[in-house]
């Protein structure tokens, strides 16, 4: 493998596909850390390959590149992400407001606690790195996973959303936030420096409060 300065793991995979094995299947789009589609397991760690320099990831001048864990493999380095995104839908990851086009804009104070919680979690681009790094997903395939729960957390804190009781029902229980063991792998590995663990802990508190109020 030719080596050069600032070479990324994605460069290596691309070289293999173009020069060594044209049958190699892998997925990428933006190459600059915006789309999240090039996530793979590099030397045992889920990463964005486009933002991972070979110099930093190689051990003893060797790279072992595998598909993301916890997802079915379609071919080579390409995983089937549909189950991952189905869980976003299961966690009611869709905004459901109560206002119509005739209403005025909602006013959300940027410094409000809820808005700050949303800001800390909203930048997720759905790359699946956290999901592939989560041991609980491995042990419990029904577990919604850090990304879907992080998305639910942003909506629980969205003061405009009107379906939070249903959302809390959807994310509670053994396949939801209560399955999290706080291993913090998702937070450790998230390329966007989001802390899904903190959001999941927030969901546990929100669910507990709703249960005590008899809303669940």
């Amino acid at each position: 493998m030719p080596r050069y300065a600032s070479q990324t793991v994605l460069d290596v995979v691309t070289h293999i596909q173009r020069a060594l094995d044209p049958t190699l299947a892998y997925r990428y789009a933006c190459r600059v850390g915006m789309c999240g589609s090039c996530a793979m397991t590099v030397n045992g760690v889920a990463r964005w390959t486009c933002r991972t320099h070979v110099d930093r990831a190689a051990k003893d001048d060797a790279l072992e590149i595998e598909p993301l864990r916890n997802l079915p493999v379609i071919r080579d380095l390409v995983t089937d992400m549909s189950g991952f995104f189905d869980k976003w839908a299961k966690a009611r990851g869709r905004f459901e407001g109560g206002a119509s086009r005739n209403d005025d804009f909602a006013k959300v104070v940027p410094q409000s606690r809820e808005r700050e919680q949303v800001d800390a979690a909203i930048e997720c681009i759905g790359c699946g790195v956290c999901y592939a790094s989560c041991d609980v997903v491995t042990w419990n395939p029904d577990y919604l996973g850090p990304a879907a729960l992080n998305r639910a957390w942003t909506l629980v804190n969205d003061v405009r959303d009107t379906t939070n009781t249903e959302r809390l029902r959807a994310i509670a229980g053994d396949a939801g936030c209560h399955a999290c063991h706080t291993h913090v792998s998702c937070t450790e590995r998230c390329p966007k420096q989001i802390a899904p663990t903190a959001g999941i802990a927030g969901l546990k508190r929100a669910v507990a409060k709703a249960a005590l109020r008899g809303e669940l």
Partner: protein
Amino acid sequence: MTFRNETLLWMLQRASAAVLALCVVVHLATMVYAIRGGLSAAEILGRTRGNYGWLAFYSLFVLACAVHVPIGLRAVLAEWFKWRSGARDLALAAFAVLIAALGMRAVLGVFL
């Protein structure tokens, strides 16, 4: 099990963990303190027999164990052994009773 009951189990486990944290600290501190002067078993029993304070403390300790341990095992059985059925919960309820019975037997053994 409904998500509401699963939430209640989670709250029970957190609450029992808080109780256990306190109980373990008190228990260890008491043990270290009790053996410093070389207390004999008879001397220890002399202090615990008829002492309602220790009875209450260790009964709380046992109760917290009986609540906390089966809920933790529930997750272990599900994740490591794929046992998620209602039979698992019945078995764990029986295990909770066993922990409580054995624990209270020990507590009453030094109280009566």
